[in-house]
């Protein structure tokens, strides 16, 4: 730690996924690094995002497994969710990873500065009066939950994911505004915990950025799980009542709930931090950068949720690493954002990499596609999960997109990541027969079929 300022090769503002990855890589490359953080090392992802949500979702999976154990021949009685126990488990996981990260940062000799920083010149950040000069600066202040006009969060009845992760009870009923990743994940977890859930989404599908067939499979699965949703039916107004919240939708319908989770997106943390004053270009609060993540001002770069790229932790990692290597003169390869895998950790999971068939059409690419239903996949039958793997390939060309739905498919998407990024042809994947019986075989089967040699394909 340091409270007296100093001069560094690199000064990083914000120690979330983007900031700390840049710090680690830069220190490996021999730079002196100051990492400024006002809250906790690890940022949103570790403390209020990726990790705690996945712990809740896993506790939900455990609860579902118990409830359905009979169908696997295991006699058991589900009693209840012990919310204090869930938090204890969740906090233990977060705590362990936080300790690990803290040690890691320390072992790299990175100077951690606690406090709120502000860009006070093109090469300096000031924290509590102490000035940190940087030959290079990386802005990585991340994002925060945002709302929409006319919808005030009160932290009690109308909350964001931040409060939702801390809730000491299971809501009897919840309205979730927004059918994106965060909304869908909370819907899944809360439903597993026994809540009545209604998702309200203005667009025609849940996870509207995903391949449409994936959204439809998720909707079907959610319907079976008793998760309700209102699609293509925007929110109009909301009022708190004696017992909770009442929401009116554009078509006049009203939805009631004990509470309302607003999950309509996250906006950049960029106000009042001195960015504009040094001439950094901003749009809707996002810092604008070129393909090398440079802001166009001095040696100032920006990474993570602060810039208008995909808001994902591993995008933060990739951008942080890229910037450190770029500054070090290593000439790293620019990130292909289409090639970044996306996973929604609901039950069932939804995962994808590459582009959708719609995007391919918009780009004028002729494609062939194959959908492999998990009904034909032995391991998925053993897990009793439904879903599908869809592979989109350029006609007589490489694989352009992989889109999956089903329990545990999030772990399969990295194979798609290699296939997409290495521009493999379906036939090249088809030649490598996948291990039996795994869920990954579904991906193999889809490629076999696209290569004109289907194996376990039922019409």
């Amino acid at each position, binding site marked *: 730690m340091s409270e007296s300022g100093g001069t560094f090769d690199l000064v990083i503002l914000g120690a979330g996924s983007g900031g700390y990855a840049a710090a680690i890589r830069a220190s490996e490359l021999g730079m002196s690094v100051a990492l400024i953080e006002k809250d906790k090392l690890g940022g949103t992802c570790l403390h209020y995002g990726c990790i705690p949500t996945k712990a809740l979702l896993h506790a939900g999976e455990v609860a579902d497994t118990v409830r359905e154990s009979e169908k696997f021949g295991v006699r058991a009685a589900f009693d209840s969710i012990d919310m204090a126990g869930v938090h204890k488990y969740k906090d233990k996981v977060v705590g362990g990873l936080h300790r690990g990260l803290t040690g890691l940062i320390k072992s790299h000799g990175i100077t951690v500065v606690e406090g709120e920083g502000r860009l006070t010149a093109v090469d300096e950040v000031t924290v509590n009066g102490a000035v940190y000069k940087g030959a290079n600066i990386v802005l990585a202040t991340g994002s925060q939950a945002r709302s929409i006009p006319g919808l005030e969060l009160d932290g009690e009845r109308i909350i964001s994911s931040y409060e939702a992760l801390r809730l000491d009870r299971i809501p009897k009923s919840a309205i979730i505004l927004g059918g994106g990743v965060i909304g869908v994940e909370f819907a899944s977890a809360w439903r597993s915990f026994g809540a009545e859930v209604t998702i309200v989404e203005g667009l025609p599908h849940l996870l509207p950025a995903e391949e449409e067939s994936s959204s439809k499979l998720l909707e079907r699965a959610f319907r079976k799980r008793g998760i309700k949703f209102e699609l293509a039916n925007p929110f109009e107004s909301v009022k708190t009542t004696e017992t909770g919240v009442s929401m009116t939708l554009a078509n006049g319908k009203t939805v009631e709930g004990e509470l309302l989770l607003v999950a309509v997106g996250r906006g950049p943390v960029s106000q009042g931090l001195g960015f504009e004053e040094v001439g950094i270009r901003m749009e809707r609060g996002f810092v604008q950068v070129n393909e090398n993540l440079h802001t166009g001002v001095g040696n100032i770069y920006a990474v993570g949720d602060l810039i208008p790229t995909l808001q994902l932790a591993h995008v933060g990692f990739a951008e942080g690493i890229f910037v450190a290597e770029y500054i070090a003169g290593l000439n790293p390869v620019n990130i292909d954002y289409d090639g970044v895998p996306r996973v929604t950790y609901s039950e069932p999971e939804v995962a994808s990499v590459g582009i959708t068939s719609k995007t391919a059409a918009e780009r004028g690419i002729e494609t062939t596609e194959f959908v492999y239903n998990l009904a034909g996949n032995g391991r998925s039958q053993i897990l009793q999960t439904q879903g599908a793997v869809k592979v989109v390939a350029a006609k007589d060309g490489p694989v352009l997109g992989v889109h999956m739905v089903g329990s545990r498919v999030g772990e399969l998407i990295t194979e798609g990541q290699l296939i997409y990024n290495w521009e493999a042809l379906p036939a*090249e994947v088809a030649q490598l027969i996948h291990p039996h019986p795994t869920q990954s075989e579904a991906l193999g089967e889809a490629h076999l079929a696209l290569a004109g040699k289907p194996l376990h394909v039922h019409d």
Partner: protein
Amino acid sequence: APPRPASPGRGTGTRTVVLAKPPVRKLAKDLGVDLRAVAPSGPDGIVTREDVRRHAEQSLPRTPAEPR
């Protein structure tokens, strides 16, 4: 482009020259083509599948009847 400070680093160690994306290297291997002998036509001097296939056509095609 922004000014780039000289690298203060110790580097990442050895960097092996990559001639082609992994699946293309496998294709070359399967066809018995030495990648270093192929003229690259891709961006950054990368060997493409077409380069490999074109090169392979010059050597004898294998048939099932022949022992390999």
